[in-house]
């Protein structure tokens, strides 16, 4: 049997490694738009901040050799059809089983901006190596990030850590707006601005980029002002790369074994999966989900059994800083809040169970909260103690109580 993967990212690499661990000895071909060993997008911002590039290759730079894989790199897949994939260069690869895992791609408000030297996305290692080169070659000291979601803030922190003067332009009234509710998000935004010195321009958008001799010189903002900068990073959102498989960019619907059809599995940022707690289908584009989906798909391929338990939307931003922003679930229900000058914690309860939560500033008891949330344990009585727990003893308090001594 011959297995092909579209993409050589997190899901594809985990899939291939699981296949081999499960004893699959057949031929494996990995096709990627880029030319790298599998890399972890979560880790690549550290490369921009100064870490060696190799640390982004989280399964090792020798991955293809080690796992006996034929890589076909630097040639994106444009079409999947009836047991064949076709790439941009016209090459055709046949398969018995396919893992479709090309992730998602940046969505630019103005695609023409990318023609300007000095404007970049922040989605792939190709983007980041190009940004790194631009900074080194032209001695960039100043950067503007358009988009203050997770990836935009991640980019801002990496460049700030590298020593650049950074401005984040964000259309919402707080950074990380999808990870936070209004109050929690404003708290996180204030902490971030105060502790790092990153300038934050809220309820503002970039309307135009101005070039001088083909290179970026400044950006115009909706409030009528402009910022002179040789570097603009656009991180305003992503779209699943489902086009080559489905002809549309809505993601790939899969069954409980991550199958799109009897021969094609899909996993990672491109897959539409149910939420582990409330079952709502969606694009839960996070590292642990990509890993778990890839494992379920690979085991299913080998053993013909297994089901995906659903995706989790728990996420944390804690890169280059010591004040994490953690969030999971839905911000609906009865809010319970604890805060001091440095920390903000809020849990949303629904029917006595945790429906969503946010922790800004530290992570004491974060793991216990995560478990109560996932298992939907009745938590009404515990939550207030948990929120004000600064020593991380909640779990053990309960264990001691339960042990009945």
């Amino acid at each position: 049997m011959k297995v092909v993967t579209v993409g050589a990212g997190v899901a594809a690499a985990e899939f291939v490694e699981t296949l081999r661990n499960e004893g699959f000895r057949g031929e494996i071909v990995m096709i990627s738009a880029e030319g790298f060993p599998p890399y972890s997008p979560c880790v690549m911002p550290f490369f921009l901040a100064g870490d060696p590039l190799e640390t982004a290759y989280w399964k090792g730079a020798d991955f293809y050799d080690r796992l006996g894989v034929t890589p076909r790199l630097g040639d994106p897949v444009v079409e999947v059809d009836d047991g064949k994939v076709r790439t941009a260069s016209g090459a055709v690869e046949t398969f018995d089983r396919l893992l479709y895992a090309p992730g998602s791609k940046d969505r630019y408000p103005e695609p023409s901006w990318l023609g300007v030297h000095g404007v970049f996305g922040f989605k792939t290692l190709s983007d980041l190596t190009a940004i790194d080169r631009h900074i080194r070659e032209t001695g960039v000291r100043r950067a503007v990030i358009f988009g203050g979601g997770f990836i935009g803030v991640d980019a801002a922190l990496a460049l700030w850590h590298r020593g650049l003067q950074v401005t984040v332009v964000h259309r919402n009234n707080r950074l990380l707006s999808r990870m936070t509710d209004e109050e929690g998000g404003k708290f996180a935004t204030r902490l971030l601005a105060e502790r790092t010195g990153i300038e934050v321009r809220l309820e503002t958008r970039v309307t135009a980029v101005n070039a001088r001799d083909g290179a970026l010189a400044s950006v115009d903002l909706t409030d009528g002002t402009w910022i002179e900068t040789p570097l603009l990073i656009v991180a305003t959102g992503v779209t699943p790369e489902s086009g080559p498989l489905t002809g549309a960019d809505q993601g790939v619907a899969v069954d409980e074994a991550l199958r799109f059809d009897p021969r094609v599995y899909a996993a990672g940022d491109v897959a539409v999966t149910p939420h582990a707690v409330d079952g709502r289908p969606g694009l839960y584009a996070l590292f642990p989900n990509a890993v778990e989906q890839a494992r379920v798909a690979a085991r299913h391929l080998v053993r013909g059994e297994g089901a995906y338990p659903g995706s989790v939307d728990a996420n944390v931003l804690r890169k280059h800083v010591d004040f994490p922003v953690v969030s999971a679930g839905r911000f609906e229900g009865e809010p319970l809040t604890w805060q001091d000058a440095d920390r903000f914690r809020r849990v949303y309860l629904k029917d006595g169970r945790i429906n969503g939560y946010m922790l800004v500033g530290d992570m004491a008891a974060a793991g216990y909260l995560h478990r109560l949330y996932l298992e939907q344990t009745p938590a009404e009585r515990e939550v207030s103690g948990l929120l004000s727990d600064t020593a991380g003893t909640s779990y053990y308090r309960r264990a001691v109580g339960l042990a009945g001594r």
Partner: protein
Amino acid sequence: MRKIFVDYTRCVACKGCEIACAVEHHPSRSLADLVGDGRTQVNVRVLAVEHEAFPVSCRHCDPAWCMAACPAGAISRDPVTGAVILDQARCKACGMCAMVCPFDAIAFKVTHASPGGRETAFKCDLCSHRVREGRLPACVEACHSGALAFREHEEVRRDRATRNLREYLLGERALPDTFALYRELRRKEFARRGEPAP
């Protein structure tokens, strides 16, 4: 595999385990060098839970939540001891592991093993280097009250053990009189002061 079990009713909060762990994980392996060293790494914490004291550390889950969440490939399983090992040289301190660890067993600081003077995550490594040589983990060896024990963990209970701390509690042995007296005094002291015992 063998794991560390806890009988907290016997813990007298002497913190011998913490000190033994700090020495074991210090580059010089010397008690004297711990003094005033902010990079000291202590993988076990004796928590004060009201009048009880509870030595807390990683439970080496299988499957391990932290390992599945780490996007840097920094967490792996020791093939010999079964311990879940966090390689600080590869850690980015991104917090993904701590977010999902059901036992809140992961902490962050600049330790002697952190690269480039940057904060990293750290946790118990089950003293795998000692266990490979047939020795006990340092904390277990240092615990003279019998609150920590290193024993075989039943394979069949593996799944429950990734969620339930009670899997790791020992309590079948009768408590000696001196322990019972000590516990009673602590409870009273706690009630009197209305704050956690150290």
